[in-house]
């Protein structure tokens, strides 16, 4: 019984660590390319986040299942093979059911393959832990990634278009409001600077805590 409880605690800790202590974007600085590229609006960011969660869970399950059979020098090859397969599936799914999103995200969906988060989790967690822990870790990490992405995208979309999730929050001059869209926020500049400031903010908060 006591053993069970400590197990539960460590599981929930694994789950939560992905959101803050080991947040892949803000703390570990992993997976920066999609973070910067798809966060011009919340919708593509959310789609990206969910795709990453899907790929992360699947690859963690597969890697965890075959962790005892892995030969060290063929390990990375196995990981990339599994990841590439699931990314292709995710890509086909988006093309079939969400064609609009698929054309917005374009090549950034296949680029999930080289997203360091996934290979890093496969290496650091799934290849050493049983399947349940691996899944929970995947959900936690993926969730942390998605939330960070959406937060960043929310800030950028708000300033770039005055809307969040395509719902107009600040009225633009075209509709009689005062907010002049800040187009730079939708461009690469906005991505880099917003993320830089967010990292700075994270540093301040974590230092106080």
């Amino acid at each position, binding site marked *: 019984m006591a053993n069970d409880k400590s197990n539960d605690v460590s599981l929930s800790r694994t789950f939560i660590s992905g959101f803050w202590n080991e947040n892949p974007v803000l703390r570990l600085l992993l997976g920066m*390319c999609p973070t910067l*590229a798809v966060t011009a609006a919340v919708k593509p960011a959310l789609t990206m986040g969910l795709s990453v969660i899907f790929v992360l869970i699947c690859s963690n399950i597969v890697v965890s299942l075959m962790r005892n059979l892995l030969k060290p020098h063929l390990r990375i090859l196995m990981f990339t093979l599994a990841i*590439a397969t699931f990314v292709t599936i995710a890509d086909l799914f988006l093309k079939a059911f969400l064609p609009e999103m698929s054309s917005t995200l374009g*090549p950034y969906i296949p680029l999930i393959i*080289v997203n360091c988060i996934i290979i890093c989790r496969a290496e650091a967690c799934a290849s050493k832990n049983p399947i349940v822990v691996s899944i929970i870790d995947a959900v936690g990490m993926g969730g942390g990634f998605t939330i960070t992405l959406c937060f960043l995208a929310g800030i950028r979309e708000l300033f770039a278009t005055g809307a969040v999730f395509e719902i107009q929050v600040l009225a633009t001059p075209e509709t009689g409001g005062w907010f002049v869209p800040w187009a730079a926020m939708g461009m690469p500049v906005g991505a880099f600077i917003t993320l830089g400031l967010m990292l*700075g903010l994270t540093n301040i908060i974590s230092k106080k805590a």
Partner: protein
Amino acid sequence: MDTLQVLLMGFISVVIVNNLVFTKFLGICPYLGVSGRIDMAFGMGCAVTFVVTLSGTLTWMIDNWILMPWGLEVTRYVCFILVIAGAVQLVEMYVRKFFPTLYDSFGIFLPLITTNCAILGLCLFINLWGVDNLLEAVVLSFGAGIGFTLAICIMAGIRENLNLSDVPECLKGAPITLITAGLLTLAFMGFAGMIR
């Protein structure tokens, strides 16, 4: 003459106008990680240029001569990543065996390159841009590598000077690098639309 002009324009466009780092956000991880010192940055840039030229060419050949005629586009991503991983391994072995001095200077970066998004990204973009001859594919891949080297060296130069300046405590390290990169993209945006 015409071909030469197309190639030259394509090269300049991929180095400056459509620079992978500044306009497509590819290769940000090494861009932030290795841009601390200018010699390391240059080594990384050389390694990336080497691998990207090789894998860009190879994937173009596989894509156009094997996958498209046979209707196997669905396995494109798997093939690409395996080609890249293979190319990196080969290059590493070859360089270590025949050019030990070269290996000492940039060999340590080679394994990292497999997961460099710039490489896979370029292979995908070449496919997306509809490049239809081998020579153009080679030139564009090489140009992308040069573009990456350019970006990472500029950044490293700035960061070496940044060490001496008074940066607020919370922004030290990655945050200030990102902000600097943001300002750099702003500068590079001036080239946008110069070549179509």
